[in-house]
């Protein structure tokens, strides 16, 4: 307890895991998401990945980057930016929202949480950009999967499993991610005065056209519904026109330029309007056309809230968790709900419980990687 292990490479990590014998290990990068969903603290030593931070290989021409999982996300993004590239899934910095410092996320932690920002709606989630990895399993064995190319169906796609596993299966030591070129131009179309339902309609209409909208969010606290377009300048202009035309029934639109677009969407990803709001913070994932229904059913018309992914991702702060109600509603609408942060202790699990057959399968999958349950799984912290 209180102990922190800091392996410098996979071999050391493997030794540390193999030597764990009976002790639990909590995998941690920068701790930016330590507060995400955390219910009761678990007695465990910390396996700190930040020494696994080397840039192994960056090949801008092939759009592929291989780095230590503990590399700082900020440094990675700066490196990519210097080459006119970026990570397509636009990982947001949730640190401040969760009570951690800004900018302390690691690449591995981001992938393990499948943390994906507004551009997920067009470019896919973090899991879609992890091409390969090396990791240490709960048995203390170093193994790898995937490769350095996108088109790869050799063996099971363990990368998908690792992404979003929250460190429950193995500790990532090296990851290979796909990069994309930064677009030459970006702009945002902004509508004001829309209700939640109208906003979902508008965003749905925009995404049903071949306009390659790369961000669709509704920020009722700031009275704005925003849609982002990126690409070459002439194309962005033409698509803006078409978008404004399509959304004319929803009101007059303003256009934000490149700079304003950049800062706006960083704020959207970081959930800036919800910063400092007290209450239970819910992340509700539903089919996008049903986003407004979530809010209406919960009577959350005035609650601090934000819709991203065209309505498919609802962030909501409630005075009381109302977990049973929120979860039942999310399920009825075809989704699930995560209690990301709670102000006061409550019994509800942070992560949405799965049906028994699926939960049993998940346990067997966990056994395949970590039979002794060395790693803490924040979805099932006691287990």
């Amino acid at each position, binding site marked *: 307890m209180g102990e922190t292990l800091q392996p410098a490479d996979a071999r050391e990590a493997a030794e540390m895991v193999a030597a764990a014998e009976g002790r639990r290990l909590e995998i941690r990068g920068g701790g930016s998401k330590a507060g995400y969903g955390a219910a009761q603290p678990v007695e465990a030593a910390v396996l700190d990945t930040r020494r696994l931070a080397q840039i192994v290989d960056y090949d801008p021409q092939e759009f592929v980057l291989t780095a230590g999982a503990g590399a700082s996300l900020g440094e990675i993004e700066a490196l990519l930016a210097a080459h006119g590239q970026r990570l397509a899934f636009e990982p947001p910095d949730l640190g401040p929202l969760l009570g951690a410092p800004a900018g302390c996320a690691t690449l591995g932690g981001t992938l393990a949480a499948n943390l994906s920002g507004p551009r997920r709606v067009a470019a896919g989630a973090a899991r879609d950009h992890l091409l390969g990895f090396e990791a240490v399993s709960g048995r203390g064995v170093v193994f790898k999967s995937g*490769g350095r*190319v996108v088109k*790869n169906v050799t*063996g099971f796609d363990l990368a998908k499993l690792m992404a979003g*596993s929250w460190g429950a299966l193995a500790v990532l030591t090296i990851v290979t991610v796909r990069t994309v070129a930064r677009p030459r131009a970006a702009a945002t179309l902004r509508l004001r005065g829309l209700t939640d339902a109208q906003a979902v309609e508008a965003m749905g209409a925009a995404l049903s056209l071949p306009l390659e909208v790369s961000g669709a969010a509704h920020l009722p606290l700031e009275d704005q519904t925003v849609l982002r377009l990126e690409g070459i300048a002439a194309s962005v202009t033409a698509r803006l026109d078409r978008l404004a035309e399509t959304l004319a029934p929803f009101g007059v639109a303003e256009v934000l330029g490149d700079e304003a677009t950049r800062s706006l969407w960083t704020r959207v990803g970081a959930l800036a309007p919800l910063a400092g709001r007290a209450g239970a913070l819910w992340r509700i994932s539903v089919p*996008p056309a049903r986003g407004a229904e979530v809010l209406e059913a919960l009577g959350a018309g005035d609650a601090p809230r934000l819709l991203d992914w065209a309505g498919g991702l609802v962030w909501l702060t409630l005075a009381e968790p109302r977990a049973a109600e929120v979860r039942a509603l999310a399920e009825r609408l075809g989704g699930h709900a995560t209690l990301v942060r709670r102000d006061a202790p409550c019994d509800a699990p942070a992560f949405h419980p799965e049906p028994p057959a699926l939960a049993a399968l998940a346990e067997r999958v966990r056994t395949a990687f970590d039979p002794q349950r060395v790693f803490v799984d924040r979805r099932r912290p006691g287990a």
Partner: protein
Amino acid sequence: MALQMPDPDGEVLKARAAIAAAMRKILPADSVIDLADELRVYETDGLTAYRQPPLLVVLPETTAQVSTILRWCHEHGVRVVPRGSGTSLSGGALPLQDGVLLSLARLNQVIEVDARNRLAVVQPGVTNLAVTRAVEAKGFFYAPDPSSQIACSIGGNVAENSGGVHCLKYGLTTHNVLGVTLALVTGEVVKLGGLAFDAPGFDLLGVVVGSEGLLGVVTEVVVKLTPAPETIRAALLGFPTVEGAAQCVADIMAAGVTPAGLEMMDRPAIHAAEAFVHAGYPLDVEALLIVELDGFADECEPLLDEVCEIARANGVTTLRTAADAAERARFWAGRKAAFPAMGALAPDYYCMDGTIPRRALPDVLQRTMEMSRACGLDVANVFHAGDGNLHPLILYDANKPGELEKAEAFGADILRLCVEVGGVLTGEHGVGVEKRDLMPVMFNAADLEQQQRLKQAFDPDLLLNPGKVFPTLHRCAELGRVHVHGGRVPFPHLPRF
């Protein structure tokens, strides 16, 4: 057949009639096929070199029937091989002598099209093209488009994580599937993923896509729909050297232009295709690129100009842009006919599939030609240049003793080369039986063991599609120390040695 498959279980073979009778209690009599004459028709898929009639064939029509069949087979230790349209080029649907071949072809309904949420729910036997047909009236299409899309099933696409020309821009199957209903080997039915962008728990959906029928049987698929592009433009570019063409590809991608499709053909492929369909290809070039751009007109035009500029900077000698849809179709006609065109040149062809970093293309092509000369078999290359996925087509004559083996050895050498230059064994056709024994080229024992352990989380008795993907079979007890957890021994029904 030289290929080593798991030894058939003698008890199961003896019980064939009883198994058929049990299946006839679950399905109508004519949905169970057990006559030798008829079983032979199911003995192979698109990889015709390998043939094995199954024990029986069953043709269920519902998830409930699939579940019941699996439960019965699990209880009686009978192996199961799932089959979609049987178009796999890696032997994914190759039957087992003691296995029930479970055809999903009769689960062929489009269940729902939800345009507001941009998704559709379909049964696994629906063909890839039929999914697009079902949604095109609403202005959508289903993006991954393997060349066999007219016939291949969406369930098979899920099993193989299929790609196609347009996956360069729109992603592979795994990027376009929101959920599946999976019947586990025990008959339990679970839903992975769903209708929303993500689902609670581990991304089991992500690992089931591309799992080649080893983890469960897909009985329903939720697919993502993509708005159909307004404008499509295409260019045909001919280069005097492969290096020039390859550099052009790299420059196009580096410029941030993501074409909808970017294909390359080498000289032998160009000539074969031209002789077959007369698409008007230039015959004096070493490499031909077909670039397709889609989107809004105001976007496609400047991008097309840019692509042409890049081509000129790389020494293009033939440059044509399609004036209309008919001309665009002619650009593609040769590429689409490349495989059968090769088939017209020799009695048989063997289609390989590997992925390499784009920059390695000229080197790999040159070394492939050297290997071709060394072994005496002709080869042509068709290449998804945009993502480095190559399809060497090796010509041979299956009726000549020894030629198949020579072709396979040549193919294996090409795949080894792909891995050597930093690529992978298969980009879209899957491992199946074809590349199974090459897995150790890419993965060490620990890597393979970890994948095997995952397999056992889904199918501890190894009843689903054994003999595919992994070179050797390990039962859990053989994988080293068996861990005791909470006083319980895992997998208690397995014998301990």
